């Protein structure tokens, strides 16, 4: 039995109040074991992104608790959450979120700068990660000079830079064509193996679900497994 990295217990999240209130999450509980890739699947509006936000500390639940690596995060203040994002949790966005005037290598090194990693160590880590995502040749290129798939690879490398325990990816292939999307998912699968990182990814694509160790289905704010 592998110990869970993420423990979600009784999470509820409601937006608005009264008759127009939207219950995005209703008493959601599940665990994610360390070093696994879990696909979160559901229709649009089913609550996938809200759940990822709560788990990643970007949103606070109305009820319930989230433990990451044994640390209760729902009670953390802003600084505590910032520290959590620096040390343990990282994100990959559908729209990549790279800094346009920085090169691919500088984008990947951004979290290491925040962690004040020494320059030599940072550069070595950046080289390693760009090599990992197959972009060693494009280290000095800026995001505008890269294709969508390449940009997403840079984003994944950046997410891995600070060696997080948990990588959260919200529909990371949403803006990519099918082939590129599959290669990105394969990359994520690969980093689970090579870096030992736990990946929690939301997707609609059944092919991509096949790459996951486990699929968690969500509908109308409730787990459907």
């Amino acid at each position, binding site marked *: 039995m592998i110990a869970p990295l993420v423990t979600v217990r009784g999470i509820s999240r409601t937006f608005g109040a009264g008759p127009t209130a939207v219950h995005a999450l209703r008493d959601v509980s599940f665990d994610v074991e360390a070093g696994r890739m879990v696909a979160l699947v559901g229709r649009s509006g089913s609550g996938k992104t809200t759940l990822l936000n709560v788990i990643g500390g970007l949103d606070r639940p109305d009820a319930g608790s989230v433990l990451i690596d044994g640390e209760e995060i729902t009670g953390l203040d802003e600084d505590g959450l910032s520290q959590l994002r620096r040390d343990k949790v990282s994100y990959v966005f559908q729209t990549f979120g790279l800094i346009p005037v920085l090169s691919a290598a500088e984008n990947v090194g951004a979290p290491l700068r*925040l962690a004040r990693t020494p320059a030599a160590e940072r550069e070595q880590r950046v080289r390693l990660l760009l090599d990992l995502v197959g972009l060693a040749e494009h280290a000095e290129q800026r995001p505008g000079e890269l294709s969508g798939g390449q940009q997403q690879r840079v984003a994944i490398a950046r997410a891995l830079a600070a060696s997080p325990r948990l990588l959260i990816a919200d529909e990371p292939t949403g803006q990519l064509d099918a082939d590129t999307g599959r290669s990105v998912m394969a990359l994520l699968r690969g980093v689970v193996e090579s870096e030992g990182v736990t990946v929690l990814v939301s997707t609609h694509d059944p092919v991509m679900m096949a790459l996951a160790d486990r699929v968690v289905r969500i509908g109308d704010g409730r787990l459907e497994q």
Partner: protein
Amino acid sequence: MIRRLLPAVHWPSVRGRARADAGPLTLAAVVVAAVTVLAGSVPVLLTKTADQAVRQAVRTAGEQADVQVRSDWEYDDGVSGGRVRDPRSAEELDSLRDRALDQLGPLRDQLAPPIEFAGGPYLKILGGSEPRSFRLAYVAGTSEPAVTWISGAAPRSSAEQPDSEVPYTGDPWPVQAGISETAAARLGIGPGDRLQTEDVDGNPCDVRVSGVFRPVDRDDLAWQVAPWLLDPQPGADGPGITRFGGLLVAESLPDARLAFDIDDVSLTVRFRPDASVLTLDSAERLAAAVLTLKATSGSSAGRGGAAQWTTQLDRVLRDVRERVDAAQAQASVLLSAVLLVTVLILLLAAQLLAGRRAAALTVARQRGTSIVALGTELLLESVVLTVAATVVGALIAWAVAGGVAWGWLLPAGVSAVLAGPGFGMVTAYRATRDKRSPANRSARRWAERTGALRRLTAELAVAAAAAIAVTVLHQRGASPSAGGTVLLPASAPALGALTGALLLLRLLPVTTGLALRQALKSTRPLAVFGAARAAFAARRVLPVLALVSSAALATFALTLSGTVGAGLADGAWRSVGADARIDLPDQPAMTTAALIERVAAAPGVRHAVAAEVTTATPVVVGGASRQVRLIVVDSAAYRVLLAGSARPPLPALPATAGPVPVLVHSSEGTLRAGDTMDLKAEGAPAVTLTAVATTDAIGDTGDVVLADAATLTAAGVPMVPNTIWVTGPGAAAAAETTAGANVVARTDVLRERRDAPLVAGLIRLAWASAFTLLALGLLGFALDAAAGAPERWQTLSRLRTLGLRTREARRVAAGELLPLALVAALGGPVLGVLLAVLTLGPLGLRLFTGQPGDPALLLPWAGVVVVAAAFLVMVVAVVRVEAAVRRRNRLSEVLRVGGA
């Protein structure tokens, strides 16, 4: 048919967009309204101020501004070889007046009622201890001025027959005249007395006092042409000579003609411009009409009704016109500056609006709305907005100035109408066009180079326009009377600011790129992110142009105002020569030394120095005679006086044998150090002077020669002091207490010049322009920040997902905004001062400051610091406001597509 030609307008979309973007639209409307107030009212106010200046000049000029028409009496030779008395002499004056009124036509409405004047020659009053003169005069407005005969009676005819003939030879013909009670008391004569007088040739005259009168109304216009008929006038016929007057009436005027040669009694009608109704235009029309009459009437008056017109009104108006032209040039320069920045801000606002509407416009296009239809909808919106804002602004301008000038409103109006639709159509087109970036690298480069070349061409065109504008400004100024368009030279500072802003725009990405490279080498993560955001933001064109131009032109306006202020202070000092000046009378009550001692002992007086100042003293330089302002003063004492002031120090005058050493000043370079000149003083031998050095200008204009009193006295020209210069905070009070009415205080001169309509108006306009430009610049900064806010905070939110803390995110945001603020805060003022150095000279500021040359440029440090600080404060304010606004948004939104 027309409906078919026009694109379909989807009114719900028009209303919806207007409602959704009510804030930016209102802001643009406020800008249009504010600029309408300024640009609509200033030309009207300037015209009114010019009219006010003309009235003041005409009032100050007094009789110099009068229009005179003169004629000669008809020959009065009789059949018996004598002269015939003409009882209708007064009617001849009436006839001349009526003819003159006919010739003036409608222009007579600009003139006060005419005054008829017939004056006798200079007569010397015999006896008495003081030199006195006497003149007979007949004056009449619509009728003779009313008087009360307090003794005696009005003058009567001296002849038994009204048209009797008088032989040329014989006793002087008697003439009766009334004298005022003041004159009677001074002369000690009364009715029936004969005044002992003789003409310039020593021939006796027979003037008999018929009565003593008192004027019923001393302010009657008729008395203005001969005030000495009421009160004896000292100095009117030469220094020390007091003029007395004898009043003639219609009955005694014929006798006055017989008493003197035919041409010794003048026949004149005077018209004084009516200052209360005069305007610059009407005054110029009047002067031109009189000059035409003068030209057509010949150089001398003729007999038989021929009249000669004369006036110096054109000369009076020439000075005013020159100052009005300069004021109009300066106003045009300031308005051009405000309009340029307004246009840039309106473009910036339109760009922001198009950015906000990008999604809606794209959807509209995707649903099949044509670009033309979208443009029409946006045009309708901007026309309604601009017209409404212009009407509001025009109403305010009307209330402020009593009129609206529409010409200057055109650039802002056109920009306000076209910018929104223009940016909107471009946004919609770009979002839905099929054109993609070429896949081929060389094709991409070709496209990039074509774009770069286009931009360079536009920049060079602006720079060329600026260079031409500055050249034209230097060659012929920006005065309307210089001919040609005023707009180009008046736009020189504005175009210069735009050119400078374009240069800074080129430098900014280089600078931020360098900063980013340096930051990447550092270990501070915030520096990297801040520099990265700054490098990203540095590519925006309009904000840099708008902010740098506004800061530069605000600084220019402040420098103009400061330079005029300092020039006025300097001019007042030069005119007075110290904090106060005592003009000594010919026969002072106490000696100069005693006066200086008393003044110097008064509290608040630092120095008091006596001098002899004579204007128009002839000296011979290089064989040519020149008129200079000769100042003879104790040079050591004067040096000490100047040392205690803000004036430049006075060079030392060496005590040498031979030519008298002097200091010279010449605004036109006619006198230089090393020149030798001969001074010929009255009753003294010629003295050779040698210029050993130059000195600062003393007095308003002209060449100056300054000599040491002791040295010049030793050379045979003793000093006769006529001036005392006094310095110190209590100088004016001490001088007034000691010397009474003959004191000129520097502060009074300064106040009078500063409060003059054109000067006061110019300074107010410069301040209003500086404030408006700065406000527009800050608004531009806010607009740019608002335009970049969504993208900025999305990126910052993503950085926060990497672990950036909230307060660190604020610093990174400040890092993005800082370069634009810095380039405006530092580059703008530097550019503004450079523009002032380049363009203030041809604007003729000396015409307002009363200095012999252009005033020295004064940099208003306090104002510049405010301009610079305002942009930096805006960075803090914008970051705080944005942080407060964004705090309401959850960070989780960044994980959603397009959210922030």
